[in-house]
């Protein structure tokens, strides 16, 4: 879609630049305007589709709170969720305590000419996932989570980091899950 958009933009530029040598100058100008409009529409549509399908959506209608937001391993966290727009819950409503490891790995790639290269990439993996199903028909929820005593603590390193959060999400199968997070700090 982006390629077609760029093609349409190129056609608009070509028509505009060649308008003085064209049979109909006004026809070229109108054509350039039409192609420019199509290009803008295609790019906007591509951005919208990408955001809609692939980008995790932050759901402002899921109000999550964690108390306290700074704990130690083995401590408990009280998580509360208020759903301000229940009509938007179109999947499984869940509240969870999650720890994600952000770890650097070497990724090997080969280009079209056969040249291979390595680059550093940060991958994310949920190492603690305590998701609990909630009743979709209820607007307010409160749950108690315990941070496992032997789990990772919050850590911001050079090659690996561990980050904790209380999260609410609507799991929707093959589509991106609307979610809302509250980061918490887990001390050792």
């Amino acid at each position, binding site marked *: 879609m982006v390629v077609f958009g760029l093609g349409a933009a190129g056609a608009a530029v070509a028509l505009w630049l060649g308008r003085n040598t064209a049979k109909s100058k006004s026809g070229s100008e109108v054509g350039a305007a039409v192609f420019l409009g199509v290009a803008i529409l295609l790019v906007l549509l591509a951005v919208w589709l990408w955001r809609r399908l692939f980008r995790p959506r932050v759901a402002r209608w899921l109000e999550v709170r964690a108390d306290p937001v700074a704990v130690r*391993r083995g401590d408990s966290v009280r998580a509360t969720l208020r759903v301000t727009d229940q009509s938007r819950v179109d999947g499984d409503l869940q509240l969870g305590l999650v720890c994600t490891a952000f*770890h*650097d790995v070497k990724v090997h790639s080969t280009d079209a000419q056969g040249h291979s290269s390595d680059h550093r990439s940060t991958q994310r993996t949920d190492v603690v996932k305590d998701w609990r199903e909630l009743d979709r028909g209820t607007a307010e929820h409160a749950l108690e989570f315990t941070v496992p005593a032997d789990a990772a603590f919050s*850590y911001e*390193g*050079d*090659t*690996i980091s561990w980050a904790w959060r209380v999260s609410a999400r609507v799991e929707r199968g093959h589509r991106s899950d609307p979610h809302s997070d509250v980061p918490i700090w887990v001390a*050792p």
Partner: protein
Amino acid sequence: MQVEDRTYAPGEWVRGRVEVQEGGHSRRLAVALLQRDRTSDYAGVVRTIAGPELHQGDLEAPASFEFAVQLPADAPPSYSDTFGAAYWEVDAKSDERGMDTHARTVIRIGPPAR
């Protein structure tokens, strides 16, 4: 390098000894504590706690230097999982023209007292 093989607490002193087994040119010999982490593909240094300078000038063998370096009070404990590890290391460095010579030992840090 010899360091007592036990679990240290944050804020504790790490004591040990550096034995010079082979003499040579050196500008200085010093010890540091390194807060490090690693994954299966990469390793990095997060923080360096400079320790005492043990010797200045060329090193002659045999020689032995005792040292003590204090862990910071907020030192994160040693931890590892499937994806990587956070750990501490004692690094004795002979600062030389060109490549320096290192002797390194990983030490275990326990969680702070509750």
